[in-house]
């Protein structure tokens, strides 16, 4: 590490912003918003330095390493590889978008709101840059509580139910993961090595089958709940429906990625034998999630719930790609995470725009908005197509790669997922048609004169997403290049792995 501790600056500028906010008088909403935005922008600015990541260089760059709790070998180790660098950028960008979007809609407890969002940023960013399993766990838990508050305080009518469900689900998984982390660290130390939680050390140790199996199950539960994977997804629709728009953007855009990232970074490389042996089961669940999410999304009457279920389906693609263990699949999985963060974040933002005006999201209540709100319709259309996976937009690249990877693994699996691409066109386009093209409902007519199109703030919030969704679709090369090395390492780790009890399965 030389020069600025850039990762520390990225992770902790929001914290400094949150502390500074404590000094700002709460009734001065303007000052509160500017301070919060400045902190988030600072974090975004620092994260741009990660674009200087050198794909040909060392695995983890921008490293920082300080002793923390020496009695247990816990260290403050930060570092990014291509995968985490991209996700850090996604997080800082979406956080700024979410904060900018919240400018007008959030009118109650403004100061608390921005403090919470900034703390959420700290947790999310910390997860992506930690190279110490214990540090990772601490950030993982820190990211949980702010989202709990965001949904619970600023959410919809059934917010308390939704947020308690969210937090209990996630806690069960993450606490089990804590036991697994301890078990892994203790097993490594048991062989006479110094006690450490360092990811780079722990992944090189060959764990016994028992630890591989039980540890992986614990990691799996924690990450699969976060992703969320069928059948552990039931918290997600509730959380999304009740969350305020900015909460939904970050929940879908970043928090779900914590789960996917956990699999790629920790679960698979640490415990490759178990990962390989359990892969068929996980692929099965992923295919079910893809189908199930798409089918359930078709019949949702609520726009937000529809997008939430489509997330279940898209994150199923991520899981499928992650566990076929080939280059296309893994790159596709990582790329889908990023693309899904952008498109779904934008879709939630757009749904939020109409919800702010009418306080309703029922698809049946909409209709004909194309005539009244042309810009809104155009943008909604763009991200609808991105979500379906239209070539030329970002969604296509990830899904295509995943399906390619799935073909290499098993033709039937790939065929089943192909069908869902059609289904996703059905639910997204059908929603688009009902909202924008049919005759306006009687209910909508009462709002007709008051409706407004996308305003300046919303354009500013949307514009980076618009640029990215097109840019990544047309020219995904640079991102894929960043993802190549991490993906190769995962393939290397799982090559020839497998629990002896399960025997070779391929």
């Amino acid at each position, binding site marked *: 590490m030389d020069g600025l501790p850039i990762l520390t600056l990225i992770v902790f500028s929001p914290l400094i912003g949150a502390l500074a906010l404590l000094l700002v008088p709460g009734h001065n909403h303007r000052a509160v918003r500017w301070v919060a935005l400045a902190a988030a922008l600072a974090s975004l600015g620092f994260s741009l330095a990660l674009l200087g990541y050198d794909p040909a260089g060392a695995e983890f760059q921008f490293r920082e390493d300080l002793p*923390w*709790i*020496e*009695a*247990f070998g816990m260290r403050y180790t930060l570092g990014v590889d291509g995968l985490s660098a991209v996700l850090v950028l996604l997080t800082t960008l979406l956080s700024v978008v979410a904060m900018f979007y919240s400018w007008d809609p959030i009118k109650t*407890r403004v100061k*608390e709101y921005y403090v919470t969002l900034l703390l959420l940023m700290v947790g999310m960013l910390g997860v992506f840059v930690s190279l110490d399993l214990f540090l990772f*766990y*601490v950030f993982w*838990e*820190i990211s*949980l*509580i702010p989202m*709990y*508050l965001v949904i*619970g*305080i600023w959410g919809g009518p059934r*917010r*308390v139910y939704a*947020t*308690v469900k969210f*937090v*209990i689900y996630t*806690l*069960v998984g993450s*606490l*089990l993961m*804590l*036991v697994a982390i*301890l*078990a892994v660290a*203790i097993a490594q130390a048991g062989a006479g090595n110094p006690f450490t939680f360092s990811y780079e050390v722990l992944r090189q140790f060959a764990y016994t089958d028992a630890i591989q199996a*039980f540890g992986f199950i614990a990691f799996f539960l924690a990450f699969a709940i976060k992703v969320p994977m069928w059948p552990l997804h039931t918290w997600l629709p509730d959380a999304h429906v009740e969350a305020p728009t900015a909460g939904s953007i970050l929940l879908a855009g970043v928090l779900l990625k914590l789960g996917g990232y956990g699999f790629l970074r920790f679960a698979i490389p640490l415990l490759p034998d178990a990962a390989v042996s359990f892969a068929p089961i996980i692929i099965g669940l992923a295919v079910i999630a893809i189908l199930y999410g798409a089918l359930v999304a078709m019949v949702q009457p609520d726009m937000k719930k529809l997008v939430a279920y489509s997330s279940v389906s898209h994150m199923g693609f991520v899981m499928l790609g992650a566990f076929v263990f080939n280059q296309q699949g893994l790159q596709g999985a990582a790329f889908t995470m990023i693309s899904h963060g952008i498109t779904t974040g934008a879709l939630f933002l757009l749904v939020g725009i109409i919800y702010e005006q009418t306080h309703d999201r029922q698809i049946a209540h909409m209709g004909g908005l194309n005539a009244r709100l042309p810009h809104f319709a155009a943008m909604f259309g763009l991200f609808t197509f991105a979500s379906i996976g239209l070539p030329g937009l970002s969604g296509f690249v990830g899904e295509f790669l995943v399906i390619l990877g799935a073909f290499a693994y098993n033709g039937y699996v790939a065929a089943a997922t192909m069908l869902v691409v059609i289904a996703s066109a059905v639910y997204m386009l059908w929603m688009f048609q009902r909202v924008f093209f049919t005759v306006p409902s009687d209910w909508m007519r009462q709002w007709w004169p008051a409706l407004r199109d996308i305003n300046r703030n919303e354009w500013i919030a949307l514009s980076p997403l618009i640029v990215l969704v097109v840019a990544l679709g047309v020219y995904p090369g640079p991102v894929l290049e960043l993802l190549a090395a991490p993906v190769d390492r995962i393939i290397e780790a799982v090559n020839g792995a497998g629990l002896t009890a399960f025997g070779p399965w391929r």
Partner: protein
Amino acid sequence: MNYIDDLVTLLPELILAALVLVIIATDLFLSRPNKWILTPLTVGGLILAGAACVVVWDINETVYSGFYIVDDLSVFLKAATIVIGILSALFAPGYLAVRRIPLGEFNMILVTALIGMCVLASSSDLITLFLGLELMTMPSYLLTGLHKTDRYSNEGGLKYFLLGSFASAILLFGIAWVYGLTGTTNVAEIAAALTGQMSPALLVAIGFLTVGATFKIAAVPFHYWTPDAYQGAPTPITGFLSVGPKLGAFALLIRVFAEAFEPLRADWLAIFVVLTVLTMTLGNVVAMTQLNVKRMLAYSSIAHTGYIMVGIAAFANTSDPEVAAQGIESVLFYVLGYAVMNIAAFAVVGMLQRDTTRFGGLNSFAGLASRAPMRAAAMAILMLSLTGIPPTVGFFAKLYVLLAAVEAGLAWLAVIVVLNAALAAFYYLRVIVYMYMRDPEPDPAPLESSGFGSLALGLSVAGVLALGIFPGAILTLVEVSAASLF
């Protein structure tokens, strides 16, 4: 053998004893408006006693013919005792004043109980141990019933006293059996006499001792006194009761089971593991159904007893001294961390009881965030700490216990602990739901605020966060302390 020189090793206890006399004397001469002076006086005396702990640190000797041991373990527990005392003395005045409970009596009885805890921590003989135990619990009964005009306080005090006396008698009976079997009451000599063999008579002795000791730490199935005593006692005193006597009782457990009965640990392990699982599960399940925060915290303190017992179980389940030491270390760390967060949590409940007809129901927390943002934020941090969410001391304490358990080969017990922690999240977070996600009631409970209380709350929350992020300093102390057992 120089009895006068040995007095130096008793410095903390002597200062506390002198403090009791000073409080009584000063109380006589203070007019009612000036009674508040007693609080800084008590706290000052306690700080002095804390400084004395530094003097006796690292002495490690047995004094008074083997009746008293001043090792680092005991000094750590004494320092923790004094922390508990300081926080209790700072939190109580506001609550007591509204109810016209005399402050002098409270401070005097409190410090007496602290002496008992110190003696208990330092006893190297079962006789001293019993003496310390009674010196701790007698004042505890008094404190529970201190609100003389309140029926619940009387009921709680009486229940605690009756059941506590039985438990003490049972424990004493166990001590008698041990004496009969080994011919000694000295802890070290008992351990030497008990190398290996197990007899039915010994089993009876262990049985009596276990019942007596688990009653004092409020482990299932000997917890029935806890909810009533805790709910009846004046709220800041409940905070003290939930951690003070518990710390003392864990000192007793360590002295009796981890020291005297150390050779037989494989035999008492099974009982302990069963009690541990029962204690945390029942405590959490029942706490989930409580709508009164005071009672909820009472049941949850049973659950925390269970978590701490995991450390003892880890000690007993391994033959590796390093791992065994980690079990004891986790107990020490947990007891200290739990003390700070739980006293403060009870204190917040007490602050909402300025109106003496309020009993600390969840409703009185509704909308607290908009009425008293600082105290709501403090309570939220305390609840997160009790749940075990980083970066708080509660998280690190739980982590320590889990680490000890996994390392000692009790991974399944660790899984039960974390599942219990998830259960606990439900009811702890419910307090946050009420504070932040509900509107205040039409007639919100008036808030009591005393300068001492706010100071102590600030200190506790700062401690909870500081020890959660940088536990290093305490970890070293805990390690050195536990090492004096091995």
